[in-house]
């Protein structure tokens, strides 16, 4: 790549960041997402008790967090009924949600956009057929479909250590990817339909360019802004879905420090005893979802302005 091209792209990125951070809401959202991402990456070093299942503490300790005095105390978010430090568990739980939701969203964007661009550009029976399948998939509520898929795969018996078992462990991640591929594909398809009538695409056809070249070199760059927006949206929905599945008992399995699972484990009668063991993971979910939404809204605006 020639240097001037590279510096141009840096400048474009910088401009994008400037527009994104100009609005306080999007700046706040972005900052919070970055904060959680930081926890996900370095949480193990930050948590006072790096083992989330360390039960060496007194049970049902109230939170010692004192915001007024800026003091964290021994158990800032208290301990649950099994004597586990809620603060450490919330911090350590960030990683799984980013891994599952982030990776799931990423896979769905990559597969979905490739599929959608091809459908949109190719058209014809291929588009027609896949379009119907996508419509059918979109008609089923995401959560219901996820429950069905997770339920089926979880109930299959695999040899321990086999790749199928490995796969089953990551079933939520895969389900998210599968679930969102049609959504992304539809966005990519409609963008491709718009771009493919542009004359520069016809100029490439006149040169006899192969389909893959036209899709990835001529069409894709113009679609990327829409895909970036879609990726951030998918991420926020995926977080919500991971938390929901965890809460319903279809996500991570105990005793892993999954936020949704923590909410589930501490509801009902236990809530009277240790409300903090439910409140803090629930708050974490809420803050992260809102933050991602604010950020994706900001990204959408920045992309529109950038053009």
């Amino acid at each position, binding site marked *: 790549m*020639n240097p001037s091209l590279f510096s*141009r792209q840096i400048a474009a990125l910088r401009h994008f960041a400037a527009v994104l951070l100009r609005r306080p809401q999007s700046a706040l959202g972005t900052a919070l997402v970055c904060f959680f991402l930081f926890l996900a990456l370095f949480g193990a070093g930050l948590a006072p008790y790096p083992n989330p299942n360390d039960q060496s503490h007194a049970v049902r300790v109230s939170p010692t967090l004192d915001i007024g005095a800026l003091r964290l105390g021994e158990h800032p978010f208290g301990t649950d009924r099994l004597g586990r430090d809620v603060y450490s568990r919330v911090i350590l739980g960030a990683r799984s949600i980013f891994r599952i939701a982030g990776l799931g969203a990423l896979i769905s964007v990559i597969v979905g956009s490739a599929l959608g661009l091809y459908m949109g550009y190719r058209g014809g029976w291929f588009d027609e057929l896949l379009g119907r399948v996508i419509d059918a998939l979109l008609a089923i509520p995401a959560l219901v479909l996820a429950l069905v898929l997770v339920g089926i795969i979880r109930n299959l018996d695999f040899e321990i250590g086999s790749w199928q078992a490995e796969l089953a462990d990551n079933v939520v991640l895969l389900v998210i990817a599968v679930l969102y591929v049609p959504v992304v594909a539809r966005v990519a398809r409609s963008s491709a339909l718009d771009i493919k009538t542009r004359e520069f695409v016809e100029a490439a056809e006149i040169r*006899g*360019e192969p389909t893959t070249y036209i899709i990835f070199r001529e069409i894709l760059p113009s679609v990327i802004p829409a895909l970036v927006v879609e990726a951030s949206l998918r991420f926020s929905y995926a977080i919500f879905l991971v938390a929901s599945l965890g809460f319903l008992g279809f996500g991570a399995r105990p005793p892993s420090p999954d936020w949704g699972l923590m909410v589930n484990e501490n509801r009902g009668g236990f809530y009277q005893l240790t409300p903090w063991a439910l409140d803090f993971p629930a708050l974490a979910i809420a803050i992260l979802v809102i933050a991602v939404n604010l950020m994706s809204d900001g990204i959408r605006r920045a992309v529109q302005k950038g053009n």
Partner: protein
Amino acid sequence: MTAPLLDVERLTISYRIGKRWIPAVRDFHLQLAPGHIVGLVGESGSGKSTVALALMRYLSSNGRVESGGRLAFAGEDLLSKSDAEMRSIWARRVKLAPQNAGAALNPSMKIGAQVTEVLGAALGIGGAEAEQAMLRMFHDVNLVDPEKVAERYPHELSGGMQQRVVIAMALITNPELLILDEPTTGLDVTTEAVILDLIRGLMAKRDTGVIYITHNLGVVAQLCERVLVLYAGEIMEEAPVEQLYAAPRHPYSLGLLNSVPRLGQSKADSRLHSISGNPPALAELTRGCVFAERCDFVIDKCRAEKPPLEQLGDGRAVRCFRWEEVTVYPHPKSNAPSVPRPTGDDSEASRRRGPAHRDRLPPIAMGGLRGVEKNTSPLQRGVRDEERVLQKDDRDTDTLMRVTDLKKHFPVARSLGDWLRGKKPAPIRAVDGVNLTLGAGQTLGLVGESGSGKTTLSRLIIGLQERTGGQLELLGMDIRNSVRERSPDVLSKLQMVFQNPQNSLNPYLSVRQALRRPLVKLRGMTPAGAEAEVAQLLRRVNLREDYADRFPAELSGGEKQRVAVARAFASDPDLIICDEPVSALDVSVQSAVLNLLARLQEEHGTAYLFISHDLAVVGYLSDVIAVMYLGQLFEVGAASDLFQPPYHPYTEALVSAIPVADPHHKAERMLLHDVLPSAQRLPSGCRFHTRCPRKIGAVCEEEAPPWREVDAGHAIRCHIPLEELSALQHSFLRREEIA
């Protein structure tokens, strides 16, 4: 002059860009008396629409009129009016007919309701009275069947009808001032002629003052009394229309007038004058004259200080230090190049063109039509003695491309009703049996109204659309239907320049990337070789080599089109299809691109299939012209013969519709009133009979007309015998001259 209707002095209009207010129009002035028409001419970005909006006090929130100026309408100061007062003025006294009539009408309301609504809001007239007023107005703007039109929705009307409705809407309150913002820009010449005729007729009856905004100098010459030439937000010249055209005093006006090809002017005669460079960006205006950077007459003083708008008397004013030296514009009839001092990169080429060049023109018979028989009786049909003509062609010339009976029928989806009744709807016959040959190095011009099938024909040839029938041969090889099936060899021989410069380059690829790809792909160059060739290509289209690293967003429209031309030439093709390559460009830029195309053709011997709705442009670049109507050719002939009798009645109408940039040419027009019939339900017999002003009778409705050969290579498809046609048309032209 009576008391002015509009009196504008020292008007400065600014737009907010970021945090700064940038003056977009500076020191504008205008006097307009009731019943007069003044033209506002300028290229895009010159501020003409800004002026229109400011005169109405209708600027968007990021625009404002600076204090210190005067804007008086019928003696009242508009600048001090409140919004409520302005609203009552807008409602009835000042009207704007916007450029895009289709977008100006509400798509969800019937036409009648929209127009009567105006009456209700402005004058409080409703019910039957409003209905009557509306029908009268529709009648005045020559809408056929006013009652039916009122019951329709905007999308059911053609562009010309929509424009008439908008004009009717503007005139129905009997306004004192009407501002027409490019009302005919998106329309066909034939429709444009009808609308201009209408405006002229309406103004003669009323006392309305009209400001006519346009970039088309021909329209101004035909319609206006006085002209203001605007450039980069300043008045360059103000003059009565006859004087401006006879003797422009500003280098910019002179440049504009010279850069438009005149009908009958040919690439063989002279290069077009072009104004080099691009208009300045508003933010970068300097102290000096705004036109200095592009001016042929520039002196140091021009860059240092701004020339004042000097009053020359007779209502003329000019903003130039050297106006006295601006030479007289030659009479349109003469073909001598009128460039005072040739500038820019085309000068070298024009010097090289000796007088001998004319002799190198290919013989007329080379191009054009096959299947023409001399002295055919009306019963003998078009393509008959194919063999004979084919042989003749092959002997005479080296034929580059041969199109035989080319057809494209678009199938129409069956509705449920049709399906139940077992009916199949008729296809849309966009191209319906076209025969053409094109010689190497020639330009074939293709003209016709929009919807005549020009673009479809070009797309069939390039292979972006698959033909329904017919053959296509290139250099004697049969070539396949779609680009996907064609060999790289064929692909490299056929290239295309598209209409819209905004869309023809990928915004995310640099100029270098755009040009390198065809070199590597079609000419099999190594990356290093391609690199050198990119620079070479850019030089050839008069762009600096450092443009290679630019992205399309950093290029002006004309520069983008040059890159697109370079890209088309990269594979060293034999034929380039140019689909309206200059119609999206400004006049001053347009001529530079036309010159470039002419020069490259001369250097490379490339043939063009040139499509345009602008007959003068087609005429300039073409050796042979084909006139297309509803999917068929109706006349084919050498460019030099085509614009004079005898011609096909359709060609005649097209030629007569062109607004000529000469105010003395007050021609009687041959107007085509109806719209193009649908290509799904083609008229029987001669397809043109429904609109033909020279229809002779039942034979036109019943029989397809025969081809009649005027001379070698010039043929007309009409029932009227040639001698008769020629006599009719000559007498029409004579009447014109007397009038």
